[in-house]
Structure formats: structure tokens, C-alpha cells
């Protein structure tokens, strides 16, 4: 396939390396981490999505099938990233799943106001966490049909 190199399936926005590692490990177990890009803050996530900064010149046609977004991020926080994604016509159609430690009602409410596609609270226990992550990966990558 021609576009194999550019093909992106998951954009993981996570500043905490241990959380990222656990998340990637869980996805790998279900063979879902092959086309995964991991960015470490909100600014980098926006650069990646809109082809700016370090990602200038990136082919924007290669949109991720799902964005896994933490809310607590350095520089630009997750809420702001979500707002920018859902504001912009180019990125509006990308499914965004908030994957966060927070269970705060206002975070949930605000995320849905901004147009989030799903809100997942990370369980503390690894078993539950691994199960959650792999389920959501399966769902968004295999079950769900994104717009073409």
C-alpha cells in the first residue's frame, strides 16, 4: 500500500510517560498500537493535527481514526485542544475520546459541551485500565465507521 507510511490510527495525547507506556502496552496486547503517534502536550497535539510547528508540511489528509486526549496537559490543556479540534472544519470529524483520571462532573459536562465523542475515566487498577483501553481501541478502530 502506498500510504502505509502516512497512515495514522491513534493520536495519543498524554504528558505522563508511565501512563503513556501503560496505555501503549494495553493497546499492543490487542495489536492496536501499530499506527500510534504519541504527543506529550497540547501544543504538540495541535501542531500535529494542523501541520504547524515541528509538524509543518505534514500531509493533513492522514487524519487519525481517534484522538485519545488527557485533560491535564502542559502548555495547552486538554479542554483547549478539544475546543480547537471541534472548532476547526478540518478536524471536526475526528473522533476525540477524553481519557483522564478526572471523574469531575464539570469536566464531563464541559467536554460534552465542546463536542467530545466519549469520556473515559482511567481506572486505577491496571487490569481494569488495560481492559478499558483495549476495548476503546477496538471500538474506535474496528467497530466504528468514521466519515471517509
Amino acid at each position, binding site marked *: 500500500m502506498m500510504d502505509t507510511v502516512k497512515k495514522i490510527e491513534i493520536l495519543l495525547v498524554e504528558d*505522563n510517560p*508511565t*501512563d503513556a507506556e*501503560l496505555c501503549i*502496552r494495553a493497546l499492543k496486547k490487542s495489536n492496536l498500537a501499530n499506527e500510534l503517534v504519541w504527543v506529550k502536550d497540547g501544543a504538540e497535539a495541535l501542531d500535529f493535527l494542523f501541520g504547524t510547528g515541528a509538524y509543518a508540511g505534514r500531509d493533513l489528509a492522514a487524519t487519525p481514526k481517534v484522538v485519545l486526549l488527557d*485533560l*491535564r496537559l502542559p502548555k495547552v490543556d486538554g479542554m483547549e485542544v478539544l475546543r480547537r479540534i471541534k472548532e476547526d472544519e478540518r478536524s471536526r470529524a475526528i473522533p476525540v475520546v477524553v481519557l*483522564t*483520571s*478526572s*471523574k*469531575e*462532573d464539570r469536566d464531563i459536562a464541559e467536554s460534552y459541551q465542546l463536542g467530545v465523542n466519549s469520556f473515559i475515566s*482511567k*481506572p*486505577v*487498577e*491496571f*487490569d481494569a*485500565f488495560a481492559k478499558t483501553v483495549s476495548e476503546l481501541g477496538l471500538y474506535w478502530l474496528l467497530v466504528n465507521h468514521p466519515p471517509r
Partner: protein
Amino acid sequence: MNRYLSAFLHKFTFRRQLGIAVTLGIFTLAFFSSLVGSWQGTVQVRSDQIEQGRRITENLARQSVLALIFASSDNAAEAANATLQFPGVISVEIREASQRVLLKRGNVNPAEFSTPVAGYAASGNAGVNQAIAVLDAESANSWRFTAPVYSQPSGSPFNEMVVPELLGDVTVVVSKEALSQVTGSIFVANMTTSFLSALLFLFLIRILSNRMTKPLTQLSDIMGRAEAGETQVRAELAGPKDIADMAHAFNSMMAVLEERAAEISQLNAELERRVELRTEQLESANQELESFSYSVSHDLRTPLRAIDGFSHILLEDYADKLDDEGRRLLNVVRYNTGRMGQLIDDILNFSRTGRLELAFSRIDMEGLAREVYADLQPSAGDNTQVVIGHLPQATGDRAMMRQVFVNLLSNAIKFTRTREDALIEVGYKDGANETVYYVKDNGAGFDMQYAGKLFGVFQRLHGVKEFEGTGIGLAIVKRIVNRHDGHVWAEGKVNGGATIYFALPTKENRA
């Protein structure tokens, strides 16, 4: 009567009352004085008219001498006509001594004079041989005068001793019309004069009373303005001394009042400022608390997940390099991470029950209890019997009330797990202005000595090994019930079961 009068007078000002009293007095006085004046005038006029009538009659008697001597009706007519010329004379009669009527002019009903006037008749008889007229009868409309007619002694000396001879008599009837006219006009004149002077007098009194009550009116106006809320109102210290004193007292009272008002508004402003400051502090404290709980929720979980996750990876990837003790130790680490995660969740839950807005509605408590039990049933033992009786409705936040039943029923299930014949009862009883709901079990129970600790945060009366849990459940129950203006308490004994009561105010008694 007195009461009505005073109630009536209360409606009027001092000046108006004075005015009414004086006006009434003066008009009564004027009326009576004109009445008395008229009566006196009438008496005078009456005696004048009677005197005049007598003179006319006597005159007629003298002029009738010749007519009677000669029995000449012509002469008589002449005299009669002359008499009729006088105002008020309505009838004339000339009679001979034999009582034969020589001449009669005018028309008078004889019945009118059926009763003679005793006094005058007597005086008439007293007159000896002289033409003295008497009033011999009086009716409502007229007087009747009578005079005897004697032959007149001539100027001749021979006749000196001749006794005058009675030739006849004359009768004249005079109308009283003139009298009543005069009486009327006297009365009218008197009345007019009296009332005019009364009005003049009243006018003067009014000017005077205005002058007298002016300072009083001014003072009352100023008081009215002060009452209406005008500030800096001061009365003029003018007028009579007592009124000036009153004005002075009013002024000092107003000064004191204004001083107090200023103090109060200053205090109010101070209070408001403090409230604002405290609100600000509270708000910032609240915000800090919220961001704190947010941090706890987010930041404490992340490292916990790392500990748990990497212990898990260790167990998974390096299982062959660990002996049984190593694996046991790692599992202890994982167990405690899980427990810490639970504690964090409980703290956040507890803090949220204090912060969340309550959405009040009527709650079918019985249905709610059954619904919650249905959810929890899988965790209950097969030998557990649950009896949910009739429960009255309550007013409250349904989600929170659900949490109450979840906590109480799961506690009851947990503490009866070791019982062969576990029995859980949900019921109610009526209290004073409140409904008391209870969840009763025959489980492990507790020592009443520690009943006070039961509802504390993370207070546990059993070992973790014995019964799991962090000890937050009843603390949350207490907080929710308290937020519904209710209260909780517990009864129990060791191995004798426990009953947790929660009382909610009835609908009518909810503030």
C-alpha cells in the same frame, strides 16, 4: 354617645374643632337673641296697635253722637267711612241704645268673637258716662273694640248738671294682619342683623384663630415632612412659648434620630463590607478546596496507576524470576494501591455530597429501596431474607436518597454475611413533624459505646480483614440526611444486629 362624639372629633384638627364649637355657639346665640328681640318687639307693637284701635273706636263714638241722636244713617255712614279709612279696620258697627243696628259696614263672622276678653270687658264697664273704648274680644286674626256713645254735654251752663245720656254704642274690628306683618319683618330684620354680625364675628375669630394656631400648624407640617422621610427637617422656634418649647423638643428629637440613623447606616455599611470580605474569603477557600479535590482526583490516581500497572507488568513479564514470596509481596503492593484508589474515590464522593446542588422532588421511598436492593441482591447471600415494608414518600434529591439506601443496604448485606438466617428489614415510623425510616439487620452489630463514632469519616468498628470497606458509607449517609434537614442515629449491640435510622422532615415541615 360620648364615645361616638370623641371618635368624630378625632377626625378633625384642633383648629377645625375650635371652629365648629365657636360657629355653633355663635349661631345659636344669634338665633335666640333675634327670637327674643322679635318677641319683645311684637309685644310693643301689639300694645301700640291696641291703643290705636281704641282711639279709632273712641273717635268713632264721638262722631256717631249726631247720627244716633237723629238716627241718621247718612251721618252714621259718614263716620263709618272715615273710620274705615284707617289701616287695618275691617268692620264698623253702630248700634242704638236699644241694640238696634243703625249701620254696619264690613263683614265679620260673629262666631269669631265667641269668647270675650274678660279683662277688657271689665274695664269697659268701669268707664262711667264717657266714651271709653275697650277691647272686648280678640280672635286669631282681629281685635274687636267697643265704645259707648253718650250725648255730649253742650257748652251751655244750663246743661252743666245734665247727666250724659247713653245713646248707643259702636264696634270696630281691627285686623291683626298689620301686627303679624310687623312681627315678621321685625323677626327677619333681627335675624339678618344677628346672622350678619355672627358672620363678621366668625370671620374675626377665624383670623384670630389662624394667627393663634399657625405655629402649631407649621410644626405639624414639619413633623409630617419628617415622618414622610425628609431629612434635616427643623422647626422654627416661633410662636407662643409652649409651642416654641414643643418645636425645640422636636428639633432635638430629630437631631438624635438622625444621629442614630447615621450610626446605623455606618454599621450596616461596615457589616456589608465584612460580609463581602468573608464571602470573598469563603469563595476563594471554596475554590482552593475544589482545585484541591481536583488535584487529588487527577494527580493522586496517576502514580497509583503507575504503581499498580508496573507491579502487574513485573508479575506478568518476570513471573519466572520471582519466587512465591516475591509474588506475594507484589500482590500486597497491588492490594494496597487498590485500597488507596478506593479511599481517594470515597473522599471525593464524600466531598461531592457536600457540594452538589440538591434537586428536590417527591420520592417514592419504597420503590427506591426495592430498586436499590434489586441492584445489590447479587452480593447478598442466598440465605438472606429482605423485608421491605410500606414506606411513605419523602421530599428530597432522588440521586442522593438512592445513595443513602445503597450505603445502608450494602452495609446490612455486608454485616449479615456470616449469619445463617440473615434478615434485613426496611421500615418506617411516624415521628413529630418527621418520618423516620430505618434499615435493620441481625448481623454483626456494634457496641453502643461507639455509636457516636459510627457516622465519622473513615471510622471503622471492625477489622478490614473481617469486613471490607473504608468507613465512608455512614458518613455519606449522615451528610446527605443532614443536607435534607434530617438527622441520623443508630442502635445495636455486638452480634445482636444494628438498626440505622434516618429521619426526614415531612413535606409540611420542610423550610
